[in-house]
């Protein structure tokens, strides 16, 4: 079968973050990690005919990105598409997921390889997700698994656990169950066990990972600055029906032509705090009034012409991570150097 491989700009050798806005392009044959994949596929009788690559920011934020990438793969005669491995990388994972899902929906069997923690995972279906491990040190294993999963797909089969397919709820997923004792009774037993030297707990401390803060911008007077909020500030009437809790969506709304967030034109639909004060002066959720003053006085170069918004109230961490990856990609691609994200 003719296999097309999707990778990001970094693994294609184009460049790092400075090249993350690179639009999709195609090359014949294997590139970078694709060489080892090509060899493994060749052993199964398949040919890696082309590599399509794209910058991470472009791929994760341009609405047309998956369609453009799929078009390049189709031009190269793809009969099967393999994306990644993206490991734990959010933008790359989202791109791999969307490309594989689009191919699969178009009738081309496809898989995307990433870590089970990757925020792209929920977007892989109807394509197959293969577990790549969390970092590039697992590259060799990941490519071997991808090749064997691709071989099963090529035969018309369904790859499974042996090929590293991520299926259903991974091990360790939390399911509600009924205990013979109430939570209060269990708390007393846990206290006694701890005071006797035990180490037990019912909840392991979560690992949120670590985000290294970006370096300060050199000169705010030269910076394009965005203002963002998780305060659920939307146009009055909430036309896009942003959720007030457990948000699954985020939206963007224009600021062009506005000097202030006028009361009555915007409202917060956040379910986690009293919105009375915020609705009386929405600038206090999204400080457009002050930001415009700073723009006029030259303290910042310009304000990004849209604001991005979601509701941060009981939002699942996986969803919040996903939103963050999409926001960062969009803002970077637009040349935004600094963003002020207000939290409630």
């Amino acid at each position, binding site marked *: 079968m003719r296999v097309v491989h999707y990778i990001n700009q970094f693994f294609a050798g184009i460049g790092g973050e400075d090249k993350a806005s690179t639009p999709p392009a195609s090359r014949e044959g294997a590139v970078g990690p694709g060489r080892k994949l090509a060899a493994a596929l060749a052993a199964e009788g398949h040919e890696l005919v082309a590599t399509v690559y794209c910058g991470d920011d472009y791929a994760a934020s341009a609405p047309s990105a998956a369609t453009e990438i799929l078009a390049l793969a189709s031009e190269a005669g793809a009969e099967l598409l393999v994306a990644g491995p993206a490991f734990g990388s959010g933008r790359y994972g989202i791109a791999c997921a969307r490309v594989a899902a689009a191919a699969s929906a178009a009738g081309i069997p496809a898989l995307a390889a990433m870590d089970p923690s990757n925020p792209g995972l929920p977007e892989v279906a109807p394509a197959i997700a293969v577990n790549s491990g969390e970092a590039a040190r697992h590259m060799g294993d990941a490519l071997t698994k991808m090749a064997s999963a691709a071989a099963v797909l090529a035969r018309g089969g369904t790859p499974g656990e042996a090929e590293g397919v991520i299926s259903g*709820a991974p091990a360790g997923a939390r399911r509600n169950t009924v205990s013979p004792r*109430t939570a*209060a009774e269990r708390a007393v037993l846990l206290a006694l066990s701890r*005071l006797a030297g035990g180490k037990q707990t019912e909840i392991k401390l979560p690992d949120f990972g670590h985000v290294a803060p970006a370096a300060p911008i050199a000169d705010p007077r030269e910076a394009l600055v965005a203002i963002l909020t998780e305060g659920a500030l939307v146009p009055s009437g909430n036309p896009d029906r942003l959720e007030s809790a457990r948000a699954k969506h985020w939206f963007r709304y224009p600021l062009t032509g506005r000097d202030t967030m006028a009361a009555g034109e915007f409202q917060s639909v956040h379910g986690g705090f009293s919105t009375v004060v915020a609705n009386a002066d929405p600038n206090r959720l999204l400080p457009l009034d002050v930001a415009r003053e700073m723009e006029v006085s030259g303290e910042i170069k310009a304000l990004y012409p849209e604001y991005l918004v979601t509701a941060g109230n009981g939002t699942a*961490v996986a969803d919040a991570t996903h939103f963050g990856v999409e926001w960062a990609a969009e803002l970077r691609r637009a040349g935004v150097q600094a963003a002020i994200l207000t939290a409630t």
Partner: protein
Amino acid sequence: MAPTPPPRPRPEGGLGVLRRVIHRVTAAGFGDATELRAGTLTASRPELEALTADPALASVRLSWVSPGDSARIVKVLDAVEPRSKGPRGGAFPGFVSPARIQGRGETHVLRGAAVVAAGFLPRAQEAVVEMSGPAAELSPLGLTHNLVVEFEPAEGAAWENVDAALRRGMLRVAARLADAAAGGAPDEVEELSTPGPRSGQGPLPRIGAITNLQTQGAFKDVFFYGRSLAGSPPVVIDACEIEDGAIVSGQYGHPALRNPTYIHQNNPVVSALRAADSETLEFAGLILSPEPVDQGAKELTAAHTARLCAALGWDGAIITKEGGGNADSDNSLKMDALEEIGILGVGLFSEMSGPDGTAPPLVSPPSTATAMVSTGNYDERLQLPAVERAYGAERCALLDVEASAAMEVPTAVIVAALSPLGWGRLTASGADMVSA
């Protein structure tokens, strides 16, 4: 040589003995007079409706729903267990009775009954109680005979006044229902007391309860003797005071993570500690703490609480919260503050692990302390079957469907399903005790 002073008797720090006089309710309905006879609780509609009269309320509607009924209550606000101190009064101090210290003498309890308010109030999140089906047993109110109080606000009445009128009305109704039992023979009598500070005198570890009360303003507040604890440092109370309704909830956020008055009256952590008292531990008492809204005040409150525990000679504390991620931090800061001074803190948390259970479970975990109990995953979906009758509203706001329709909801909407005070039996699997 001075005579050796006689040994001082062990100081008793509590108020004395409270006799909890239990009357079991096995059936409920309306009739000409309000009375309890052979387990059947009969309510006089006109009498009870008159007790709820208030300028802020245009009307109220009373209905009974019982366990097993094909019924659902939506827009549930608070729920109260009927209790009475007899003819001299005293129950629900600060609301029904003057705000004088309660917690001793006799308290009549209608076990198996509740008064449940339901309807629209601002800031209230959609909250559901099922009387049958798989979610009924997830809420204490799915297992009680409930007198549902629905209401119409008076035209032009401020919502705060509607809320206050409703609370006074339902507490008066609850006290009146229990008054009806006060003359009859009880099913059981339980004697309770709160031990005084016996610090260091016995071999058993001294473990107490820290109950955090949400204090986030109108519709998200909890009352102690009729007043919010907002702005207060933590306070030590006699655990018997809560038996008489010293704590009343006006907190309508986060349904599954809500502590209705009913659960405060039956504080599950206090019950579990009392059950083990003198066997495996010494029940060391009860501290109430506000949940402030800003970080500095949360940290200060945690430090004050830890200092109180040290002063009371506690070896360990079981810490509970009310609310979502914001309230997690009150538990976490207290656990860490206690750990810092060498006292064990065990925190009860619900998990926010996403519908598939794969997300990190806590928004604001402790930094150094690790002893946690899981009351289950907030996000896991439940299927609720269609029912014949619904109360509280015609439509379920969460899904914009008929309130009686079949629906899929997160566990988060079932009242007290993930009870922060530890009423429930839910936990998250894979959660069975792991090493921290």
